């Protein structure tokens, strides 16, 4: 008996030591690490292995913009970098309808200028913000720009500009692609709100684009002139003391009516991102709202007459994280778009993980989702902000770019310990900025590379960060994708906080094919926001949707780009317009941009 116990103890000790050793070795191997290791893989090798290479071309393109952080009141200067950590945005739009995608960058410091880079079509861009009237928009007392989205609210064929701020949001009417007219006064936009997210969408399918604005800080605060320091979230995970959201219905005369309460969007969470698309096949767009310090929300559109928040039932509202992005992508070519949201992962400290919400009952009245981020290998990125799906090597599968990094200040410093003290505390402590330890120039999840995940087919992603582009460790915020040089290739624009943006020109290898569609609504809204395009080829089926902004503080090009791989024929394209009309195109020409007008029959 004694021998038996001794043997058992010996075995127990061996297993115990083995467990300690295995966990130790595994932790040092650091799989999926969020490190800054970069690879020296040359461009040619990247092209050979992954089929694409991203080269920063700011200088060649003539883009000299640099973002400046918003100013904050000296009362909260101890955590200025925390508060002023957003504001860099990028939105793509062909504002002058010349067939070339242009880029609008927001700036945030008092007196700083926003930039509208007109694509000259020769590889160069020219900042025309000042001459068109959308540059000088950060005048002290009017607030700081946080982002912008383009939408043709009056269906005149030119996209107008909605600029959202910590302050007074602005609406600029696009007069023929030559000049912007400020029509904010009387438009119905809020007098003052701390907005960090906005999208255009036609929630009632009346053919007029409406607006959603997501509030972050409470609208009573002017962050550069505060009379209190009690401005912070009441909880790191369960905060309901953020800014209100706004649902603004387009009344058709350049005026927008506030229907927020009427439509049931009454929460006060800290909203950082939103995106809209129809998830139950009734043509009315649902609204996904990503919230910091809380759970995300999913608003079911009930025939355009009201919204019902069903985040918990839909599966997306169970676990509170730090929602900072909402973007759509059909990652396994099954004709269903999922929602990718970003959060925070800092090893050993905070493991939230990003989410990919795959619909599990496509087309039913009440959508529900399952999180496939872990299975797909796109869960852990770092302190992520904006993200976009796009087929970067035209192989027929949507890849993923995620902006990363929170605050890159003094190198080899970390604010995480100080942060954990207050974020673990009671609301009276965390909610008051004066209790937060002074950052003293410390970094927090800084100097991180953005994540680039290559979809190796059927939603299995490979981390190719640092292998398909030179190392860049700016604090990425907004990500937008566009075919900037009309080559049938998706290029990437990343707006970096307090820094220059990164303009990646994408070079492809191989003979992959592509097709793109630029939709124009006739019965539906002119921008065709909400229209869904499904292409079928070689037994595959991919869906994309036209949005009026998605991601974080970003907007992709208006046209939808599909990689086809080696496929040299598309069997069928089906376009589901918001109006309910369905257009089908048989075997469209590939390697071509198709401009499609909604049929009126």
């Amino acid at each position, binding site marked *: *008996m004694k021998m*038996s*116990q001794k043997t*058992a*103890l010996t075995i*127990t*000790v061996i*297993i*115990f030591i083995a*467990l*300690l050793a295995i*966990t*130790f070795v*595994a*932790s040092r191997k*650091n*799989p*999926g*690490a*969020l490190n800054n290791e970069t690879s020296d893989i040359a461009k040619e090798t990247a092209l050979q292995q992954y089929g694409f290479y991203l080269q920063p071309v700011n200088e060649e393109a003539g883009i000299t913009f640099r973002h400046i952080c918003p100013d904050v009141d000296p009362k909260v200067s101890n955590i200025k970098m925390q508060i002023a950590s957003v504001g860099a945005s990028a939105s793509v739009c062909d504002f002058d309808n010349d067939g070339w995608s242009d880029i609008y960058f927001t700036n945030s410091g008092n007196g700083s200028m926003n930039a509208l880079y007109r694509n000259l079509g020769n590889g160069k861009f020219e900042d025309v913000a000042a001459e068109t009237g959308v540059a000088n928009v950060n005048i002290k007392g009017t607030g700081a720009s946080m982002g912008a989205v383009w939408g043709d609210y009056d269906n005149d064929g030119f996209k107008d500009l909605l600029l959202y701020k910590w302050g007074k949001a602005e609406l600029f009417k696009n007069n023929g692609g030559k000049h912007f007219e400020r029509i904010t006064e009387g438009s119905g936009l809020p007098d003052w709100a701390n907005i960090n997210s906005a999208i255009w969408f036609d929630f009632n399918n009346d053919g007029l684009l409406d607006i959603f604005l997501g509030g972050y800080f409470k609208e009573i605060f002017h962050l550069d002139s505060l009379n209190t320091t009690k401005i912070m979230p*009441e*909880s*790191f*995970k*369960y905060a309901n003391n953020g800014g209100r959201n706004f649902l603004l219905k387009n009344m058709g005369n350049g005026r927008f009516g506030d229907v927020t309460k009427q439509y049931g969007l009454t929460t006060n969470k800290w909203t950082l991102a939103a995106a809209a698309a129809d998830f139950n096949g009734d043509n009315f767009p649902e609204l996904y709202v990503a919230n910091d310090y809380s759970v995300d929300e999913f608003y079911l559109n009930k025939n355009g007459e009201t919204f019902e928040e069903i985040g918990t039932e839909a599966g997306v509202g*169970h*676990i*509170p994280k730090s929602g900072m992005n909402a973007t759509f992508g059909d990652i396994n070519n099954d004709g269903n778009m999922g929602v990718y949201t970003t959060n925070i992962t*800092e*090893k*050993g*400290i*905070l*493991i*939230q*993980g990003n989410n990919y919400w795959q619909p599990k009952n496509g087309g039913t009245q009440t959508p529900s989702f399952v999180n496939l981020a*872990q299975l797909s290998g796109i*869960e*852990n990125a770092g302190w992520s902000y904006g993200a976009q799906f796009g087929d970067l090597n035209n192989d027929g599968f949507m890849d993923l770019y995620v902006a990363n990094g929170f605050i890159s200040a003094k190198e080899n410093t*970390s604010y*995480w*310990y*100080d942060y*954990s*003290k*207050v*974020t*673990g*505390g*009671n*609301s*009276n*402590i*965390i909610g*008051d900025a*004066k*209790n*937060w*330890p*002074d950052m003293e120039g410390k970094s927090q999840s800084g100097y991180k590379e953005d994540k680039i995940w290559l979809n190796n087919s059927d939603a299995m992603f490979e981390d190719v960060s640092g292998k398909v582009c030179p190392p860049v460790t700016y604090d990425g915020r907004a990500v937008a994708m566009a075919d900037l040089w009309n080559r049938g290739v998706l290029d990437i624009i990343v707006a970096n906080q307090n820094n220059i943006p990164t303009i990646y020109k994408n070079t492809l290898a191989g003979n992959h094919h592509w097709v793109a569609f630029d939709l124009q609504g006739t019965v539906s809204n002119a921008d065709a926001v909400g229209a869904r395009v499904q292409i079928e080829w070689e037994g595959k089926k991919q869906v994309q949707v036209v949005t009026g902004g998605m991601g974080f503080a970003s907007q992709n090009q208006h046209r939808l780009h599909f990689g086809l791989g080696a496929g040299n024929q598309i069997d069928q394209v089906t376009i589901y317009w918001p109006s309910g009309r369905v257009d089908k195109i048989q075997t469209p020409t590939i390697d071509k941009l198709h401009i499609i007008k909604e049929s009126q029959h």
Partner: protein
Amino acid sequence: MQQQEYGSPRNFISEWTRKNFQYIPPAFITLILLTGQVTFGILDSYVNLIVAIVTSVVGEVVLARLVLGTRKNLASAYITGISVGILIRSNVIWPYFVTALLSIMSKYVLRYKGRHLWNPSNFGVSWMLALSTMNVAGLSMQWGSNLAAMSVIWILGLIIVNRAKRLHVTVTYVASFVILAYIRCLITGDAFLAELSPLTGPMYQLFIFFMITDPPTSVSTKKGRIIVVILVAVVEFVLRLNHSIYAPFYALCMVGPVAKFIDLKMNSPKEQLKPAGAMGS
């Protein structure tokens, strides 16, 4: 009928509590969990918690039988499992299994004079957090701002540790933490409330009521326990000055076993069985 035997309801409750005190701490930690879950939904997944509890309980049953040739009351293992389930945060399941297993195994492997030296969950959680892996983090975030719920937990916790004759441990630790938080704020220049802040979070509720009060890993005298817990607070103070987020766990992990070892060296254990008033995890 039973009530009449004790004369009055008060006596009945008192007697029942005395005889069945072993079930109070598990019930209390379950209450903390339920409060957090009902009010805020703190559990990302029930599966993780169940894995931790089952691993811990099954581990205890098997190891007690095979290594010690005895049967053990499973209250302690249950508390270990639930502590691991709450204190470890991960998006994958294996850390809950491994942490619970390491915790229970440490009771049977890291022993001196027939007594285990480390508080089980303190050992397991400290090890996993110290590795700083991509898959494991600790519970360092406030569940919410519900002062009423927090007050109930504190009051109940204090009553129970009092009943377990460990109130002096909890009170000494809290007092030491507050004093040292004030000294830290003088050193760092940060607000006193910032230094005090962690004490208001759930991580400390578990630490104060279940880890530092654990009878099997406490030293034998009241005076000794007070000295040890002050030392834990001091080591935590030093670790905090060095920006260690999980300082309390590491401090107990370092001080507790050394103190217990010295105590066992100086005083032979009077009994091998855990006292009835165990709060330990």
